[in-house]
């Protein structure tokens, strides 16, 4: 593991960019160069489209890309969860076939984990995959799927064995979305957005070689996906900086970003739009109301402390110190902040909280906050599940006695409606 020096890498990447970077290429053409050269994912293994660099050296490469204004590989949305999962658990053939088109952005992916009958209890899912010759036949329903309507592939978690405990009977597949057995329907939410889909699988087919990891080992594979999802969610705040360059590659990149970001466009409202509270209160004249100010103060304070808590976790990491509990609280803190923000918005808007649309406070954003905030305590793990996790993993409190984990899944009580 003899790494080259930073200076040497910097010169190499500069030279390479000077020779190859061309903003008038198509986005795909340019990214193919990145993939074949390994400069697109320098921290990936050299045999898999990378250069095997450390994070620190990867930073050096990125800095040079930024300096040159060069566009990187496709790295937003669910596709990167797929890439991380395949890199760790995929077969040689899967990596070779699937990773390049993920990196170029040609393929869009979606995640087929949650089901109507298994939300908090993901491992209780009942989508069934049965091997028929060289093909897995899949039946079941998935939900809360982002971008399924324009995805080529889905990461599918399905049950392949009903006679073993719930976590041990799951397998992880790559499902082609565009096939007769797969139907994608948009799912409208209470705030009017339809950023998720329901996916119905009726005798959908997965070639045998599209099983990822071992049969029955799907839970371990999915944990990798989920770990990356959490990390991505933590980083979500920095998403969506618009690229401003001129040239075909930039144009296509902006289009790609708009497409990827579309389902997430109401997420800032879901998080409470703390930034809008004071402007709304000033406009309504309610900033002078002491009772309203208390609500505003609560929201602003929680938001500030929550940001500082994230920063504390970062600081400890940067100083090489062991992580404290502050790093595990982000999701629950976000719920608390969002709820306080919704109360503050309602107080600040006064009777205008009755209104939606362009006439309403902050051009309807307040209404959207009020109708979106309930989602933040549910999506990606409810507050209740978060509290369980924090209590058990951070505080070390004992688990609840469970009787669904050590028995054959067939014998576990489940929702009557589920397949």
């Amino acid at each position: 593991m003899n790494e080259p020096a930073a200076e040497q890498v910097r010169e190499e990447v500069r030279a390479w960019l000077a020779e190859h970077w061309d903003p008038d290429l198509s986005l795909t053409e340019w990214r193919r160069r990145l993939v074949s050269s390994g400069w697109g994912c320098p921290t990936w293994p050299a045999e898999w489209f990378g250069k095997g660099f450390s994070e620190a050296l990867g930073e050096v490469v990125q800095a040079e890309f930024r300096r040159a204004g060069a566009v990187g590989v496709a790295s937003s949305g669910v596709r990167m969860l797929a890439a991380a999962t395949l890199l760790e658990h995929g077969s040689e053939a899967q990596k070779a076939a699937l990773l390049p088109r993920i990196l170029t952005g040609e393929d869009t992916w979606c995640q087929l984990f949650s089901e109507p009958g298994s939300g908090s209890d993901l491992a209780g899912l009942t989508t069934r995959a049965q091997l028929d010759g060289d093909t897995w036949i899949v039946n079941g329903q998935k939900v809360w799927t982002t971008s399924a309507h324009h995805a080529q592939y889905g990461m599918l978690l399905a049950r392949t064995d009903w006679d073993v405990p719930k976590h041990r009977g799951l397998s992880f597949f790559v499902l082609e979305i565009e096939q007769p057995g797969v139907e994608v329907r948009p799912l409208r939410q209470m705030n009017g957005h339809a950023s998720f889909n329901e996916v119905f699988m009726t005798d959908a087919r997965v070639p045998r070689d599209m099983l990822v990891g071992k049969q029955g080992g799907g839970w371990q594979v999915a944990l990798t996906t989920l770990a990356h999802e959490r990390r991505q969610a933590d980083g979500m705040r920095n998403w969506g900086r618009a690229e401003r360059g001129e040239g075909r590659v930039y144009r296509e990149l902006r289009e790609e970003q708009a497409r990827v970001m579309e389902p997430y466009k109401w997420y800032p409202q879901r998080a409470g739009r703390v930034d809008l509270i004071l402007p709304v209160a000033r406009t309504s004249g309610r900033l002078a109301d002491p009772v309203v100010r208390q609500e505003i103060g609560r929201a602003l304070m929680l938001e500030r402390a929550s940001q500082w808590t994230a920063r504390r976790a970062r600081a400890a990491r940067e100083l090489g110190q062991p992580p404290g509990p502050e790093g595990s609280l982000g999701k629950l803190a976000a719920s608390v902040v969002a709820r306080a923000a919704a109360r503050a918005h309602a107080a600040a808007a006064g009777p205008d909280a009755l209104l939606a649309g362009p006439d309403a406070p902050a051009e309807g954003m307040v209404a959207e906050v009020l109708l979106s905030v309930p989602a933040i305590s549910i999506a990606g793990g409810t507050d209740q599940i978060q509290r369980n996790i924090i209590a058990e993993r951070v505080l070390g409190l004992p688990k609840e006695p469970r009787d669904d984990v050590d028995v054959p899944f067939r014998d576990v009580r489940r929702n009557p409606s589920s397949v």
Partner: protein
Amino acid sequence: MSQLGFSDEQRQFRDFVARFFREQSPVTRARESMSSEAGYDPELWRRLGGELGLTGVHVPEAYGGQGFGAVELGIVLEEMGRVVYCGPYFGSAVLATYALLEGATAAQQERWLPPLAAADIIGSLALAEPGGGWEAGIVQASARKSAGRWRLEGTKSYVLDGRTADLFIIAAREPGSAGPQAVSLFAVQAGAPGLEVEPLQTVDATRPLSRLRLSGVDAELLGEPGAAEPVLRRVLDRAAVALASEMVGGAQALLDSAVSYAKLRVQFGRLIGSFQAIKHKCADMLLAVELAKSAAYGAAEAAAREASVDELREAAALAKALGAEAFLQAAADTIQIHGGSGFTWENDTHLYFKRARGSEVLLGTPAAFRDRFVEYVSAREVAHE
């Protein structure tokens, strides 16, 4: 002192009303109505009037009503709240009807109460203005008398059912005056020249609101000039009680929905209702709903027996504040208990959630009513010392 019991007749009346709404106006009906052209179901509305007499339940028999009181009105609204009834009942049968009952001359009452009680026409009270406030003091719209005719100028907002109302009751003041005095009520018919109705986009689509622009609208004075302030106080206290009843109905429906779901839904091999997190949430919800109910029932009784102004306003403030809080919290908790599906359009919970958000601020926020309650109680204590 309120008694807080329902007579057997009242209980039978509730059963009857509850069955009617459950069968004839389930929540699917609210969904259809809110996205329909009219924004309500005219046929159902007419049945509430003619067939059932609910629109005039509290109107004296002399005016074609049933001659019952605020308790029966509260029962109707509570049962409507349960199904998020989508129609002009609260605006017409409560606000406008009370305004005429409290503030119109006998001749005016004879003219308008019978069609209102029969649901032949829809009435609407236009009091609040942009910026809000449901009291005489906030009125800026002016009423100028010249050549024996009153002409209104100004803007009204948050006007219920403005788009469908036949009769508007509008609060306006003498030009150049200030304060709660010098405000009068006026009647204006829909379509009057100079009256412009702009529908507002609302969070709660089952309760449509409008903005009215008044540009020299010809209006009829209701009752005595400058007498609107005490009239509006009586109307709004009664309306707050009615709205509180509607809110506790909604809150109860949410609690029922959350509890049923918790008894059906399995996660981790157990009914979710067996988890303390869900169980305790439901228990807290029940407590809030029952406290709000007691407040609403006590306030309806106070309104029904023509309690002293002091007693009624105190009870109305209590009922409106606790009702709003219980309803909104129940809506949030019910979404949470339903999990992801609770956040979908398909699930009915969001209709209640939006109604709760709207009802919270309509007629005044819980914070405002809480403040008033302290004022009233303190004043009474000091007076009794």
